[in-house]
């Protein structure tokens, strides 16, 4: 193994982590502040990807496509919150799981009716479709570097929103002293709708960003949802900082596991067996990571605000 390969895999891990962060940030906000388990988060990711693909094709501009995806995911999110989820805040988590699972089924069918069963096409904008030799001798996809940049910018933006703005103050207060904030005259219903819409827009952004690399297809949200839950459990439910740390950790561990475990196994076993066993172990690497973190810190790496 060369240093270049290691660096390249590190970039891959960071990029995967950033992608997970975009999803996990929204999920953890909703969970931490509204105490709502939202399985339909992946649905908003799918909506983002589909709208981005369609609008990019119609307008010819990826930027317009991403903006449309943000708007669509935010609107759909707000609509879901106001019609379906608002009644569930005081209910059991199991009821929320059931209801949001229903939302997944509904939107999967709706998307299939609107767009058909075939996967959609979305390519990176021309300026980002090439490779950059950021590590000597290793051409790295420019689009993946772009994702890392977008993810970090979103992270900083969220930090600013939560720490420095009035909305952020209400979000923090709502998470810890919901009833008190309500008693002080803040419209909690509206606050929750706003938080849910922000979460939905982050998911929509993740979907739009993922579109050029992935199959834009029905069910794409569920594939990535489990990993996202692992991230917020590792990071500490409700903490955006935790989501970032957890996402990068999961991205790196998963990438290193897939990249290097089979290679390491080859030192001890014959190649075919090493490839097969290495693949099986790397599949569970992130779950081992989650178990280890939970033994060390049962509530995740970072505590949510006061929670």
């Amino acid at each position, binding site marked *: *193994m*060369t240093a*270049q*390969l290691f660096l*390249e*895999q590190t970039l*891959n*891990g960071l*990029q*995967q982590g950033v*992608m997970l962060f975009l999803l996990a940030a929204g999920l953890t906000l909703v969970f931490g502040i509204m105490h709502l388990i939202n399985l339909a988060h992946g649905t908003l990711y799918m909506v983002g990807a589909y709208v981005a693909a369609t609008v990019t094709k119609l307008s010819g501009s990826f930027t317009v496509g991403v903006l449309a995806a943000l708007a669509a995911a935010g609107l759909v999110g707000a609509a879901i919150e106001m019609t379906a989820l608002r009644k569930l805040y005081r209910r059991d988590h199991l009821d929320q799981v059931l209801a949001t699972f229903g939302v997944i089924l509904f939107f*999967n*069918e709706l998307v*299939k009716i609107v767009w058909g*069963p*075939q*996967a*959609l*096409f979305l*390519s*990176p904008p021309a300026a980002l*479709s*090439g*490779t950059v030799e950021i590590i000597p001798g*290793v*051409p*790295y*996809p420019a*689009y*993946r570097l772009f994702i890392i940049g977008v993810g970090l910018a979103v992270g900083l933006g969220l930090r600013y929103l939560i720490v420095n703005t009035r909305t952020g103050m209400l979000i923090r207060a709502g998470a810890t002293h919901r009833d008190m904030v309500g008693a002080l005259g803040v419209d909690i219903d509206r606050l929750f709708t706003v938080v849910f819409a922000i979460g939905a827009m982050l998911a929509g952004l993740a979907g739009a960003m*993922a579109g*050029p*690399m*992935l*199959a*834009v*297809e*029905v*069910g*794409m949200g569920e*594939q*990535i949802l489990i990993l996202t839950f692992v991230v917020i459990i590792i990071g500490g439910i409700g903490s955006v900082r935790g989501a970032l740390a957890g996402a990068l950790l999961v991205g790196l561990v*998963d*990438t*290193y596991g*897939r*990249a290097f475990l*089979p*290679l390491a196994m080859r030192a001890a076993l014959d*190649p*075919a067996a090493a*490839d*097969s066993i290495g*693949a*099986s172990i790397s*599949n569970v690497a992130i779950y081992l990571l989650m178990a280890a973190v939970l033994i060390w810190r049962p509530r995740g790496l970072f505590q949510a605000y006061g929670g």
Partner: protein
Amino acid sequence: MTRIQTFLAMAMAGAIVAGAATAADKPVKIGMITTLSGGGAALGVDARDAFQLAIDLKGGKLGGVPTELIVADDAQKVENAKQIATRFLKKDDVDIVTGIVWSNLAIAVVPSVTREGKIYVSTNAGPHELAGKGCDKNYFNAAYQNDNLHEAAGQYVSDQGLKRVYLMAPNYPAGKDSITGFKRFYKGEVVAEVYTTLGQVDYAAEIANLRAAKPDGVFFFLPGGMGVNFVKQYAQAGLIKEIPLFGPGFSFDEGILSAVGDAAVGAFNSSEYTWDLDNAANKVFVAAFRKAYGRKPSLYAAQAYDAALLIDFAIAAVKGDMSKADAFRAALHKADFASVRGKFKFGPNNHPIQDIYIREVVKEGDAVTNKTIRKVFTDHQDAYAAECKM
């Protein structure tokens, strides 16, 4: 409804019933179990559309007998497929069952159909479990045995003189079978066999390792969305011109190509059918399919269409009397119909003996599509036929 209208309606219904009865046969009922929802829906939709098209083109009849196609969605789940099969057999009393896309579903369902003495015609899945020792006189596969396309890719890669090849497939039985099939005909060195997670979305880690290993070529089998993800990311890493990419036709069907776009241009894949095959039956099929559905037919569509033509031929051969089970099976085995593949015949295990081609992904105007470039196998038979004792 007034009395007169009621009377007229009854009289008309009576006339229709009387008309059907004089045709000596009751309508043929065909039950199609296929995947119409979830990630694999595109495959089932192609199969359903093509099968229905064949019936429509023959005026709603197969073999001259009015045909009713009952379609049910298995959502790619074994339990659903089993339930539907039971309903088809016990309640709907179908004559023939067809349509299953996925091998794990086929293994669970096909024996329960053939045991009841009903005919099953496969439009896609061809697991080796049903081709060798588990073959059955009531089971006919109009598509291929699963290993066939992988074998053709292996042969082609060897023919091209590639010495070091990197292999990649998902970590599940069909993935391992594909690697086995490829290696059965590939003679060079295997640099690595990489098994990815089923449903994996990001392949950056695998692609980086692959580049570092500097193979002469890459063979991969990643069905459905996994293949779209991999091919897009492979092209974005700038590798498709550097290290040629080979795969079975499943990873490059027309639906997938429309989702992958330019990224796939220059890849090679194996298939027993492509829409550009030059024969009269195929020209009729492609024109009718494009007119009816506005897209090019995939191999799944072609296989379902051929399955319908096969049934059409066999029903006609027994003059619509399917109660002569032995004669009907013999007619199915004879399979003397105009296949869109140009020619078609069954081996002793009722699996096709057929030609398999290599195609290149090319750009045609604005569309990305497959172009047949070479025949790899002529009259290729599967590796399990000898184990079949009927």
